[in-house]
């Protein structure tokens, strides 16, 4: 369990993270979603003690990261796929990391195999592609076999094959009962991988909800119907106890419901149809709406401040 309490980070006059409080529960994939610049990376860096909070605190199972002995065995993090010395081989990079936390040397070979870069492990990392660097980053995170994993934008810049690999890996790691905290600026990515969702915008918490709840609340689905006989259509549906709403463009919308039943009802009523199609609002739209609000909110705040002067 990772607990953030009023976590705040200020860089000069900008508030990167603003009194953020939430918990990352064990055994779940928690998606950490926010637009670029929302404060995701800063938050993750504070969790592992790289950045010092301006206010509040974050603890891992009750203790600050810098109080954990041999922390790589407790928390594995991939915050920055770069961050290796270009003149050092991938194997040597993992080797010194392992030595620092007294992780057995054979574990280095295991993780190299696991992420599929064993063959290039002897090469200096200068020539690594982004995908290879990303895999090395994951290998470093897995080195101490930690129960908690933090991954900052792990699919960023990967080709489709790499993206699929990361997704599968995260699911597998979650199935092993690990806690996974993964950030992204793409809702679609979260919808696939996350059990739980934490959304932030401009450093503030916007949502802390299970993925299922978020989908229920935001993924509206409806049936769109077009017909040259609107009166007969409404009568037929009303007869079957189905409510339809007329849209501005003259089409009709039936909230929820299934297409087969609506189609059958309208056929029995002898209504001519030009269209009968299921529709879904995307989670991406819901996310954009949510973060737009945070942008609007702060723009408004600025306007008020301006007016006060």
């Amino acid at each position, binding site marked *: 369990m990772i607990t953030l309490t009023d976590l705040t980070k200020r860089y000069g006059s900008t508030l990167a993270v603003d009194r953020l409080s939430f918990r990352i529960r064990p055994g779940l994939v928690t998606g950490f979603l926010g637009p670029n610049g929302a404060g995701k990376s800063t938050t993750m860096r504070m969790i592992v*003690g790289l950045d*010092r909070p301006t206010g509040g605190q974050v603890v891992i199972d009750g203790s600050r990261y810098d109080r954990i002995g041999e922390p790589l065995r407790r928390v594995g993090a991939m915050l920055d796929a770069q*961050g*290796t010395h270009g003149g*050092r081989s991938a194997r040597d990079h993992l080797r010194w990391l392992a*030595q620092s936390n007294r992780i057995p040397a054979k574990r280095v070979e295991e993780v190299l195999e696991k992420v599929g870069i064993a063959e290039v492990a002897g090469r200096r990392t200068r020539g690594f592609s982004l995908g290879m660097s990303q895999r090395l980053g994951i290998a470093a995170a897995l080195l101490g076999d930690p129960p908690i994993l933090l991954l900052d934008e792990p699919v960023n810049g990967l080709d489709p094959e790499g993206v699929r690999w990361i997704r599968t890996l995260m699911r597998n790691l979650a199935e092993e009962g690990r806690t996974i905290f993964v950030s992204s600026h793409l809702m679609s990515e979260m919808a696939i991988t996350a059990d739980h969702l934490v959304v932030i915008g401009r450093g503030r918490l916007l949502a802390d909800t299970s993925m299922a709840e978020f989908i229920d609340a935001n993924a509206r689905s409806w049936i769109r119907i077009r017909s040259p006989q609107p009166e007969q259509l409404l009568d037929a549906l009303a007869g079957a106890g189905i409510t339809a709403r007329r849209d501005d463009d003259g089409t009709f919308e039936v909230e929820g419901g299934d297409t087969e039943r609506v189609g059958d009802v309208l056929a029995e009523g002898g209504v001519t149809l030009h269209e009968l199609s299921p529709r879904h609002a995307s989670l991406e739209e819901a996310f954009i709406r949510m973060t737009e609000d945070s942008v609007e909110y702060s723009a408004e705040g600025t306007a008020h401040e301006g007016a006060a002067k």
Partner: protein
Amino acid sequence: MRSARALLLAEWTKIRSVRSTVWTLITAFVVTVLTSTVIAAVYNNQFDSLSAKQKADFDPTNLGFIGVQLGQLVLVVFAVLVVCSEYTTRTVRYSLMAVPRRGAFLAAKLTVATALVLVTSMATAFTTFGIAQSIFGARGASLGDPGVARAVVGAGLYMTLITLLAMGLSAVLRSPMLSLGVLMPFFFLVSPILTTVPRIRTAARFLPDQAGGLVTHVRTSGWPFGPWAGLAILCGWTAALVLAGYLTLRRRDA
């Protein structure tokens, strides 16, 4: 204790696994020995044409260490590489995630690098001394002469401390360009020039390389302090910069 060993081992692997650091140490050795050899040979050939005063002041031990002036610049490069590459390559994030206690991380890094430099410096000092004195022949010094062994061991300690001082400053500045931009002109220009300016001269003798360098002389008359006191002054400068480096690491985000 076991964790201290683990940290030292990790830092040893870091240094060993990058070619540039190893090559820099070898270069420091070669540059120092070669420069000293050449200067000693030239000096020896022209000895007869020196003035009586120059002959009287002739300190074969110290003259044999003339290459240290150049070699220490290479060691400064080593210091900057070891510390600043953590920041330029962002390896420091991994380092601090693995070893979040800043003091332990810095202590391990500086201990390993300093130990390596100590070995290199001692080897350099004794090799340089041996070659230079064999060139000087009968005019040369031998380790048994008064003050000579102290000067040779002192030369090794001097180079080691200058490197450690440079690592301390690098930990404060973090940027290799900035660190080299401060250290190189200081050792090559600022410090030597200040010691020739009449009024400032006395104060300039307390600069780290001037005070510390005294230990490599056998003739130490005319100085306000003795050779070991000079080395202690260098230790003071070094301790101050290493402390500043530690405080920077503690205070600033990685």
